[in-house]
């Protein structure tokens, strides 16, 4: 059986499993639909949070990014795990005690204002759509390479699956599907990493293998990578702040923005509403990070192994003895070779580099470059396309292929390669479904029920919830088929917005009773508008990174500080919240069981 047959088999079985789980966990009420009935065990919620959190970016792109960034890649590792400490200590237990459905619910109730609620709804919906677009691209990449179907058909299949289990089961269906998806994705990530680690270093623990000597070599792998990188004109793999872009301040700001953004992302926060108790919320945060760490501790090892394999298996090869993985991926345009005429591949960080990717260019442009470049090599006119590619900023292979191609580079068994495809799909679909639920609950619960029609019946609310999630799936599918060219750019947005809007508003709402409506709204708007202005200016209008070289990815940190500062300075000037709101904050702070926990049903049945 070939890779493709295995892929059809394994992806088919995993999709069947997700649909089966959806059928047995279908729901009949809004409490089941939005928070899975609030009865998910801590360890299962931990796994579901892990799958929810680990997106196509974590599974497919992150190791590739680290592979090309070296030390600075640590911003993603730290950023996307460190936020869980903030989440566990500052937010999760209190939001569970608050015990309603969504993040805008908390903001609207705590700050006693529908304006605050609407600001939160807009942020939540925007963040979620930005994120969903990225997941759909991941689904497309996996389908087009492994199943060799059209990207659009792949997106439609993926959307159909999500549509069924999200509308049928809501949060309950999503939660139990995510538990299954967690196991698919973590197995798919760990098995190849372990196999490669044994191959390269003889250690069965990739985390140890990464720091060991290569087989039959007296040099540690990382020292070898430092040397290879330096020889090729890159900065040393393990050196900190060697890169001009990744200064100390920029690494710091980016890591912090990702951490705080992680803690403020609505689809992660909402997972803590689904457990039984505050106690379970704390354990659930631990299990979530534990399960996430299994992948995040392995990713840097995969990154280092892949860097070594890729350079070793390509450098100096001729067209005839190129490995098959190169030919497979060349078809997708994620890796391209423009020879200088000597017939041998050269990958470097200098002008003699011959490895490129399609990136933001169109395949038409690439075809034209290839034709002209061939003429140039043959000495019949044309031009050296490498210069143009370099100017377009598409030197080096696409980061997305590292995880997906490494098993092929290491010549692992066909079924392992097929399993990696299923893992990538699980990662993308699980995150997409969590985000779609946030969109649905923000619109159907916060906007429709809490603002527009507070007298809606339970059946009607459930219907609206299902319709909105169905509609959101379709919009997400369209975003996947016609991806806005700037998906990568706008993901920085999601974190920046979460960091600069939600995080300060929720933390101050819990820890400072005195904060009233106006300071909170002004703070959120100040953080939001500064961050939005900086990111849009920097990414789309060539505005220089004037804030001490902090890039768009890191500016959320400054937006967050601005939000905190504005809210805290204004608070003494405005009235304190009403007594009822202050009493609510007291209830949130108390350990559960002393005063009865908030009864979700009665609290909503005004």
């Amino acid at each position: 059986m070939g890779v493709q047959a295995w892929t059809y088999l394994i992806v088919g079985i995993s999709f069947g499993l997700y649909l089966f789980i959806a059928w047995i966990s279908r729901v009949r009420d809004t409490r089941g639909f939005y928070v899975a009935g609030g009865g998910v065990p801590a360890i299962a919620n931990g796994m579901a949070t892990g799958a929810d959190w680990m997106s196509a970016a974590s599974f497919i792109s992150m190791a590739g990014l680290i592979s090309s960034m070296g030390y600075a890649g640590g911003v993603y590792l730290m950023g996307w795990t460190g936020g869980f400490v903030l989440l566990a200590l500052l937010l999760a237990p209190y939001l569970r005690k608050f015990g309603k459905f969504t993040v805008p619910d908390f903001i609207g109730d705590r700050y006693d204002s529908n304006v605050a609620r609407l600001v939160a709804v807009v942020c939540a919906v925007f963040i979620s759509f930005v994120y969903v677009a990225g997941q759909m691209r991941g689904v497309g990449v996996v389908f087009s390479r492994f199943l060799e179907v059209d990207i659009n058909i792949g997106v439609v299949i993926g959307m159909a699956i999500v549509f069924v289990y999200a509308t049928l089961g809501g949060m309950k269906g999503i939660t139990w599907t995510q538990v299954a998806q967690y196991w698919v994705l973590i197995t798919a990530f760990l098995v190849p990493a372990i196999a490669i680690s044994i191959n390269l270093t003889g250690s069965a623990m990739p985390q140890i293998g990464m720091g060991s000597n290569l087989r039959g070599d007296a040099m540690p792998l990382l020292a070898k990578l430092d040397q290879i990188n330096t020889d090729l004109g890159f900065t040393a793999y393990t050196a900190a702040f060697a890169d001009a872009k990744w200064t100390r301040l920029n690494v710091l700001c980016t890591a912090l923005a990702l951490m705080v953004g992680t803690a403020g992302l609505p689809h992660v926060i909402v997972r803590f509403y689904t457990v039984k108790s505050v106690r379970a919320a704390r354990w659930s945060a631990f299990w979530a990070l534990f399960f996430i760490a299994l992948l995040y501790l392995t990713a840097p090892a995969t990154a280092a192994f892949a860097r070594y394999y890729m350079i070793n298996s390509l450098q100096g090869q001729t067209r005839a003895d190129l490995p098959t993985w190169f030919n497979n991926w060349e078809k997708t345009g994620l890796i391209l070779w423009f020879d200088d005429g000597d017939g041998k591949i050269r990958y470097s960080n200098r002008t003699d580099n011959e490895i490129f990717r399609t990136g933001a260019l169109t395949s038409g442009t690439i075809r034209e470059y290839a034709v002209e470049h061939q003429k140039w090599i043959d000495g019949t006119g044309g031009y050296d396309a490498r210069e143009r590619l370099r100017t377009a900023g598409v030197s080096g292979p696409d980061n997305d292929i590292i995880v997906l191609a490494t098993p092929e580079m290491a010549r692992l068994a066909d079924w392992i390669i097929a399993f990696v495809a299923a893992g990538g799909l699980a990662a993308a679909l699980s995150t997409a479904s969590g985000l779609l639920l946030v969109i649905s609950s923000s619109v159907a619960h916060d906007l429709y029920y809490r603002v527009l029609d507070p007298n809606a019946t339970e059946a009607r609310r459930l219907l609206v919830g299902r319709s909105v999630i169905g509609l959101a799936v379709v919009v997400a599918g369209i975003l996947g088929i016609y991806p806005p060219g700037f998906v990568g750019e706008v993901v920085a947005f999601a974190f920046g917005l979460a960091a600069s809007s939600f995080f300060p508003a929720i933390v101050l709402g819990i820890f400072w009773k005195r904060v009233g409506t106006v300071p909170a709204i002004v703070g959120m708007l100040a953080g939001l508008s500064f961050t939005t202005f900086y990111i849009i200016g920097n990414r789309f209008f060539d505005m220089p990174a004037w804030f001490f070289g902090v890039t768009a990815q890191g500016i959320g940190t400054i937006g967050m500080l601005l939000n905190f500062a504005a809210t805290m300075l204004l608070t003494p000037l405005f009235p304190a919240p009403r007594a009822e709101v202050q009493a609510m904050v007291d209830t949130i702070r108390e350990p559960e069981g002393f005063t009865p926990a908030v009864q979700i049903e009665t609290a909503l049945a005004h």
Partner: protein
Amino acid sequence: MPPSQPRNPSPAPTPAPPASPAVAAALRRYWHQNLRIMAILLTVWALVSIGCSILLADWLNQFHVGGFPLGFWFAQQGSILMFVLLILIYAILLNALDRKHHREIEQLSANENR
């Protein structure tokens, strides 16, 4: 958009029962202990993630653990291990504090009812 106005149905969940001074004091103690645990754990969090992994990374890189330069190890392995450990410690300590607080409250209300 209309100016923000207090929403009609009260956002306050079940109002707290009238607490006796002793119970209120116990609650305050609980909250302060909670804040202290949080402050200590967040300090460790900042020392490891901001300190060892970023601010001191280039200096720590001169030391090696196995084949790892130390600053690099903190950024890509050590910080994550520490994060998991911090949440574990928090869950254990806070759940224990909750139980202790419950016992205290039960005792207080038993005394008051006598």
